[in-house]
């Protein structure tokens, strides 16, 4: 930033704010390409030697699929290392200089692996002309060569017992891919430090257990995640809230799941059916006294349906106690949900409940694409 401009990773330029320090302008950036996360260096610089301007572009590139697949053929021990030195070139954080691979590393990779690509009708990536890379020199500073400890497989591979690399997606996929079948050994979830769905035996990473998103077919990964008291209910995020707070119009769960699906129609939604509210997670009928059409519209909209087509009152036959009635001044409550306008524990003079039919929202039709007679 000595001359008041920064080079961002795309090679453009933008003006620094005055307090930008020199190291903010370094063109080195941490390696995020999963394929190359086990290199003996951690910083890279773009554009790379394949013309990709960002790591994101490199991650969806043809080469980022080609090289890991090619590594499986065992054509050259250091092929993955070479691939990463051109996909995410090393950047020396002190000098912000890009360090290329040595020419001999490129030549060996190409000599031994190009013919393998030829067998399947593919070519060696055009942009990797080895002459662009410097000869190896004694000080080893001007270009990169693999050290003895360099990893032959990438983090996207599984290393067979024999030392070969197969793609991680082939580990425990039911087909032996390693020359010694070791990719199909120890495939139990526990052996791979994974969580096992009791019924389907599917393996899950521990990070998705009890995270509010079911992954096992029977949702078992979201069961037994918390232990609520008898007078409490469990939110989707496994927090416990008092039963009285369920569907009371106020979100008490951090994920607001105590206020989800509070208003429903009894099962058969195609014929008139009774409006039901799940206050305290108990089904309540809604008393018709004081009811207005706008409330029917709110009920239908809240259920994701269209306009109300039928609103009726139906006499309740037996002695019914679970009534919800309209709040005395519900109109001034400017509530956004129907159930927060209702209160429980009062009698229903008419002893009649709401029966409601909502139309379905129109969708998926394209009137303008009509066939016009000619």
């Amino acid at each position, binding site marked *: 930033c000595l001359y008041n401009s920064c080079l961002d990773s795309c090679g453009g330029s933008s003006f620094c704010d005055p307090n930008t320090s020199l190291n903010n302008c370094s063109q080195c950036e941490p390696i995020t390409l*999963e394929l190359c996360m086990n290199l003996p260096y951690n910083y890279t610089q773009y554009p790379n030697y394949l013309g990709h301007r960002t790591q994101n572009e490199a991650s*969806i590139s043809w080469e980022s699929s080609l090289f890991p*697949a090619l590594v499986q053929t065992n054509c050259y021990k250091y092929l993955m290392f070479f691939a990463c030195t051109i996909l995410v070139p090393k950047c020396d954080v002190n000098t912000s200089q890009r360090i290329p691979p040595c020419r001999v590393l490129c030549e060996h990779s190409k000599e031994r692996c190009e013919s393998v690509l030829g067998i399947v009708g593919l070519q060696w990536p055009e942009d990797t002309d080895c002459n662009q890379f410097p000869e190896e020199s004694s000080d080893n500073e001007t270009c990169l060569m693999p050290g003895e400890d360099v990893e032959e497989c990438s983090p996207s591979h599984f290393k067979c017992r024999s030392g070969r690399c197969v793609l991680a*997606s082939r580990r425990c996929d039911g087909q032996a891919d390693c020359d010694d079948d070791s990719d199909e050994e120890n495939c139990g979830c526990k052996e791979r430090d994974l969580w096992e769905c009791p019924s389907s035996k599917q393996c899950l990473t521990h990070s998705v257990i009890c995270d509010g998103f079911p992954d096992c077919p029977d949702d078992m990964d979201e069961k037994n995640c918390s232990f609520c008291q008898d007078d409490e209910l469990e939110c989707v995020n496994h927090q416990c809230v008092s039963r009285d707070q369920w569907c009371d119009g106020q*979100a008490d769960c951090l994920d607001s799941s105590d206020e*989800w699906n509070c208003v429903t129609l009894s099962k058969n939604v195609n014929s008139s059916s009774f409006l039901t509210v799940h206050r305290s997670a108990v089904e309540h009928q809604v008393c018709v006294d004081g009811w207005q059409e706008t409330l029917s519209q709110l009920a239908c909209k*809240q259920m994701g349906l269209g306009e109300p087509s039928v609103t009726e009152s139906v006499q309740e036959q037996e002695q019914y106690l679970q009534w919800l009635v309209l709040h005395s001044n519900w109109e001034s409550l400017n509530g956004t949900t129907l159930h927060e306008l209702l209160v429980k524990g009062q009698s229903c003079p008419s002893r009649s409940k709401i029966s409601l039919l909502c139309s379905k929202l*129109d969708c*998926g039709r394209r009137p*303008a694409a009509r066939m016009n007679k000619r």
Partner: protein
Amino acid sequence: ILGGRTSRPGRWPWQCSLQSEPSGHICGCVLIARKWVLTVAHCFEGRENADVWKVVFGINNLDHPSTFTQTRLVKTIILHPRYSRAVVDYDISIVELSEEISETSYVRPVCLPHKGQLLEPDTYCSITGWGHMGNKMPFKLQEGEVRIISLEQCQSYFDMKTITTRMICAGYESGTVDSCMGDSGGPLVCEQPQGQWTLFGLTSWGSICFSKVLGPGVYSNVSYFIEWIERQIYIHTFLLN
């Protein structure tokens, strides 16, 4: 869209164009309710701020908005919390518009599938978008017909990626008709027996569409996310306080 054809105004009234200056069209998107649009999460990488976006409906030629065109600003962007940039899984997002659109013959929502509703392999569906055609970027909306491919068969095309139940594959082995860059977020729709069109996929990723490597396109599986979609719309509509 590779191997498709130019569409006509009104044929896909749910198709929208997600735009951000100075680039203009960035991604496709799909109208699912008067105030709500679906697209994919990866379209927002590096542009997570709702203020930089607008959504254009009822347009066929990007260069020539018509009297049917409606433009809205974006109020809220909701990315799926499990969206993974590295493996492009859970690639879906919901966009709340600044105000409702007016439903016309040229701007109308598509139907959503039921939770878990499956598509049989070899079903034919349609993809649309203003993405790359292999040799150029079009101004006019392109459409193509693709065939649903089973997840097992799809996995065989993509060694480096894991095809999950959050994905749908469609296209052809030869890659003749396929979505491409710029189509992301656009619809994969299938006509239902009653004649209504239903949204089953959102264009998400695939091989480099105009490269030597061919194979099907991969779409976010909308019916996997139905409960999440409905819940987010409910929360942002009714649980405001």
